[in-house]
C-alpha cells in the first residue's frame, strides 16, 4: 500500500514538473525570447560563476579548518617530515595557481557576457604572453622536481647497515611478520614449504631460521632505522604505514623493501594526540580480494630499552613448534637429503 502511495506521489510530482516545463516553453514562445540571440538569463550566469567562486574558496579553506583534526598526526618518521613539508609547500604553490586561474575563469564570464552593442576583441595570439605562461610553470616545475628528486633519492638509497630487519608477509587476508632473532639473519624460505603451521615457508635446515620469531605485533625501535623486507605469497598486497608515510607493494615472487627511521614512540604519540588508546597501524593498499579492507596489524614503536626487553621476551618459532620442526628436519636436513639422494643414486645405478 505504502509503495503504491509513494509511487503515485512520485508520478504526480513528475506530471506537475512536466506541466511546469511545458508552460515555461509556451510562455517563452509567446514572449518571443527564442528569437533573441541570448535570453535574459545570460547575465545571471556570470553572477552565478562569481558566487560559485566564493563558495568554493570559502568551502575549501573553511572545511580545511574542520578537517585538519582528522588528518594524520605529524609524521613519525624522519623522511615523512620532509615529504610532509614538501607536500604542504606544493599544496601552497598549486593553491596559488588554482586561485589565480579560477578567479580569471569565473570573473571573465561576468565581465564579458554578451551585449548587443559590443563586439568581442579579435585577438588570435600573442607570442610573448604564451612564452611567459609556458616558462613560468616550467620554472616552478623544475623547483618542485628537484626538491622531490632529492627526497626521493634519499628515501630510496640503500638501508644503513645498522638497520633492524623485519620481514613483512602479505597473504589473503592478514599480515605476518618475522624477526631474525639474535643472529640478525632471517632464515631462508620457499613458497613450496608453506603450510598451515609454517606460514612463511621457512627452511628449517637453514640454521639462521632457528632463532627467527613470529610475533603478533610489529615492533620498531625508536631512533634506529628499520628495513622492511616485504613479500606476498598469493596476490599483490601493499604495506601501508600511514603514520610513517611508508608504502610499498608486496609482490609474489619479487621481494621488495623499504627502510625508514621511526621517531615517535607509541607512548609519546598517545600523549601528543591525547588519545590513550592510540595505536600505529599497518594497512593494505593494493586490492587483494574480499578482506582487503580488513588487513589491520598493530604497530608499536618502543623506546630503545623497551625494544631490547621486548626482543628478549620473544620465543623463537622453532621453540613453539618443536614437533613440527623435528618432523621437517627429518625431511629436509642436509643429512636426510643426502641419504635420499644416495638412495636415488643407488636406484638409478641399478
Amino acid at each position, binding site marked *: 500500500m505504502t509503495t503504491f502511495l509513494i509511487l503515485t506521489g512520485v508520478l504526480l510530482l513528475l506530471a506537475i514538473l512536466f506541466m511546469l516545463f511545458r508552460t515555461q516553453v509556451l510562455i517563452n514562445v509567446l514572449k518571443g525570447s527564442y528569437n533573441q540571440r541570448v535570453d535574459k*538569463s545570460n547575465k545571471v550566469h556570470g553572477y552565478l560563476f562569481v558566487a560559485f567562486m566564493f563558495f568554493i574558496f570559502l568551502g575549501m579553506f573553511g572545511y580545511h579548518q574542520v578537517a585538519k583534526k582528522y588528518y594524520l598526526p605529524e609524521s613519525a618518521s624522519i623522511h615523512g617530515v620532509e615529504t610532509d613539508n614538501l607536500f604542504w609547500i606544493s599544496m601552497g604553490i598549486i593553491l596559488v595557481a588554482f586561485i589565480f586561474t579560477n578567479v580569471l575563469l569565473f570573473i571573465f564570464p561576468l565581465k564579458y557576457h554578451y551585449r548587443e552593442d559590443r563586439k*568581442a576583441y579579435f585577438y588570435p595570439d600573442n607570442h610573448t604572453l604564451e612564452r611567459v605562461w609556458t616558462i613560468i610553470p616550467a620554472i616552478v*616545475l623544475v623547483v618542485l622536481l628537484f626538491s622531490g628528486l632529492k627526497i626521493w633519492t634519499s628515501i630510496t638509497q640503500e638501508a644503513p647497515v645498522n638497520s633492524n630487519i623485519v620481514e613483512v608477509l602479505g597473504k589473503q587476508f592478514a599480515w605476518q611478520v618475522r624477526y631474525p632473532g639474535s643472529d640478525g639473519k632471517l632464515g631462508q624460505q620457499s613458497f613450496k614449504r608453506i603450510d598451515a603451521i609454517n606460514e612463511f615457508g621457512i627452511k628449517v635446515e637453514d640454521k639462521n631460521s632457528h632463532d627467527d620469531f613470529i610475533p603478533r605485533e610489529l615492533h620498531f625501535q625508536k631512533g634506529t632505522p628499520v628495513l622492511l623486507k616485504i613479500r606476498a605469497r598469493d596476490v*599483490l598486497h601493499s604495506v601501508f604505514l600511514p603514520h610513517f608515510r611508508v608504502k610499498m607493494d608486496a609482490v*609474489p615472487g619479487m621481494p621488495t623493501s623499504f627502510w625508514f627511521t621511526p621517531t615517535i614512540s607509541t607512548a609519546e604519540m598517545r600523549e601528543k594526540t591525547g588519545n590513550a588508546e592510540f595505536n600505529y597501524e599497518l594497512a593494505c593498499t593494493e586490492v587483494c580480494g574480499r578482506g582487503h579492507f580488513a588487513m589491520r596489524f598493530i604497530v608499536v614503536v618502543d623506546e630503545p630499552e623497551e625494544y631490547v626487553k621486548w626482543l628478549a621476551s620473544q620465543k623463537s618459532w622453532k621453540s613453539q613448534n618443536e614437533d613440527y620442526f623435528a618432523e621437517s628436519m627429518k625431511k629436509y636436513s642436509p643429512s636426510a637429503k643426502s641419504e635420499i639422494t644416495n638412495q636415488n643414486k643407488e636406484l638409478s645405478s641399478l
Partner: protein
Amino acid sequence: MATVDLQIHSHEVHAHDHHEHHEQSFIRKYIFSEDHKIIAKQFLISGMFWAILGGGMSMLFRLQLGFPDANLDWLKPLLGEWIENGKMNPEFYLALVTMHGTIMVFFVLTAGLSGTFSNFLIPLQIGARDMASGFLNMLSYWFFFASSVIMFVSIFIETGPASGGWVIYPPLSALPQAMSGSGLGMTLWLCSMSLFIVSSLLGSINYITTVINLRTKGMSFLRLPLTIWAFLITAIIGVLSFPVLFSAALLLIFDRSFGTSFYLSEIYIAGEALHNVGGSPVLFQHLFWFLGHPEVYIVLLPALGITSEIIATNSRKPIFGYKAMIGSILGIAFLSFIVWAHHMFVTGMNPFLGSIFMLLTLVIAVPSAVKAFNYIATLWRGNIVFTPAMLFSIGLVSYFISGGLTGLILGNAALDIQLHDTYFVVAHFHLVMGTASFFGMVAGIYHWFPKMFGRMMDARLGYIHFWFTFIGAYLVFFPMHYIGIAGFPRRYYSHTGFDAFSTFTDLNQFISVAAFLTFAVQFLFLFNFIYSIFKGRKASSNPWYSNTLEWTTPVNPGHGNWPGEVPTVYRWPYDYSKVGADDDFIPQNVPLSATLSSNLEHEKDLQKVEQIDISSPNAQ
C-alpha cells in the same frame, strides 16, 4: 593540386552512387548503417546507456561508503544474493567498483565520446561525404556492441563480474581461487575488452585515414578546427597503445587458461603451492599502464577539442593561440607514452626509473598549463553567450585545472608514497579525467544536438542541469582530497576497521548524498534529450552562428551530407568578431574576396592566390 582534384571527383561519384539507391531498407539505414551520422548516434545512445549503468553502480557503492551501517535489505529485489543479512557482500562491492571503472573509462568516455563525436564531426567538419570506409565504421560499432553485450552479461552471472579493479592486476585477476570474480567474470571481461580493442582500432584507423585523405578543397591542416586535431591525435594514440593492452590481456589469458607463467611466480594460495615460477606481476603493470596512461588522454583530448570549439564560438572570439593549442595537443600526445610508470612508483620498480618517470611526468604539466591559459585568454574580452554547451565547457576548464594541479603532487614520487592508492588519487582523476571529460561529452551533445536531430534542446533545463551538476560534482569529488590526505585507502569496502580511518563519517555521508542528487539531476538531461528529439523546437541550420563546415549543411543533413557540392574552404575556422566584418562570424567557406573589408595583411596576399585558383578551369 592534382590530388585534391581527384578527391573532389571521387566525392561526386560517391554522391551519385547514393542517389541511385537511396531507398535503403530500415535495417540498412538505421541498424547496419554505414552512414557516419547514424553510427555516431548509435555510439551516443550506447554510451548514454552505459553512463546510467556505470553511474548507478557508483550510487550503490556510495551507499555503502556513506552509510556502512544501513540495512540494505530493500535492495534485495535488485541485487539478490549479493545482499547478505542486510549487508552488501564485500566482493560484490569490489565488483561494482571494477565495473564502474571499466564502464566509465572504456564504454562511456572512450566509445561514447570518441565514437560519437569523431564519427559525427570528422566528415562534417573537414567537408567529406562520409568516413573513408563506411563498412569498417559499421564494423567498429558492431564490435563495440558485441563487447557491450558480453560485459553486460557478465554482470549477471552467479560468481559475479570481474572484481580486481579496472586495472585487473594479476595474480588477483589470474587466479579464480583468489576471488570469485576472477573466474568466469574475468574471462568475460577479457573477451569483452578484446572485442572492444578491435572496435577501437577499426574506428581509429578510419578517423586517421579520413582526416588525412578526405579533407575538402582548401582544408589544409592549419585550417582544421581544433576538434578535428584532437580527434586525429586521439585516434593515433589509440592505434599505438590499445594493441599493447591487447597483448597484456592475451598473456593474461594464457596464464589463466594454459598454465603459462608470464605474470605468476612463487604463489601459495588456497592451501596449495602453484607450479608457476619466473613470471612477474610487475610486467603486467608496465604493459597495462603503457595503454592506461595514454588512455586518460584518449578520454580527455576529445573533450578538450570539443571545448575549444564551443568556447571560441560562444565567446565570439578566435581561440587564443591556435598553433600553441595544436602544439600542446601534440606535446601531450607524445609525452603521454613516456610517463606510464608514474602509476608504479611504489611497486618495487627500480627507484632510478622512478626518478626518470617523475621528471617526464612533471614535463607534461607544461603543455597542459598552456591549454588552460589559452582557454582563459579566449574568454578575455569576448562577448560571451552562455548556451548550456558553453556553460559545460567553462565547467570543464575549471575541473581540468582543479584536477590537473593535484597531478603535480601525485607525479612527485616522494609525495606519491603516501598518497598512492588513497582517496586523493580518486579525487584527482575524477576531477581531471572523469568529470572534465564527462562535461566535454555533455557540452558536445548540447552543442551538436541541432545538427544531429534537427531540433534544439531546451536551454533552461540545460541551465538547471549545468548548475546542479557543476556544483554537485565539486561537492562529490573535492572533499575526497581531505579524505585522501587523511590516508584513507581506495577500494575499501569500509574504513571503520582502522582507528586511523574511522573519522570523516559525516563527510562520507555528505559526499554520498551529494552524489545521489547529482546523479538524479542527470535524468533531467535524459528527459531533455529524449523529449527534444521528438518535440524540441525546430533548429535553424546554424543556430550558434558558428564558422565550421557542419553548419553549412541542411538542418537534417542526408546521406552524403551536402546536397550539392562539398563547400570549399578559404580560411581558418576562428574568424569571429573580425574588425571590419559585417557580422561577428565568417564561416570557413566564405572566400577572402568576399570579405575585403576585414582581411588582415597576410590574407590580402592569400586572397590574390585564391582568385587565381577560383578562376582556373581545374578548380571545380
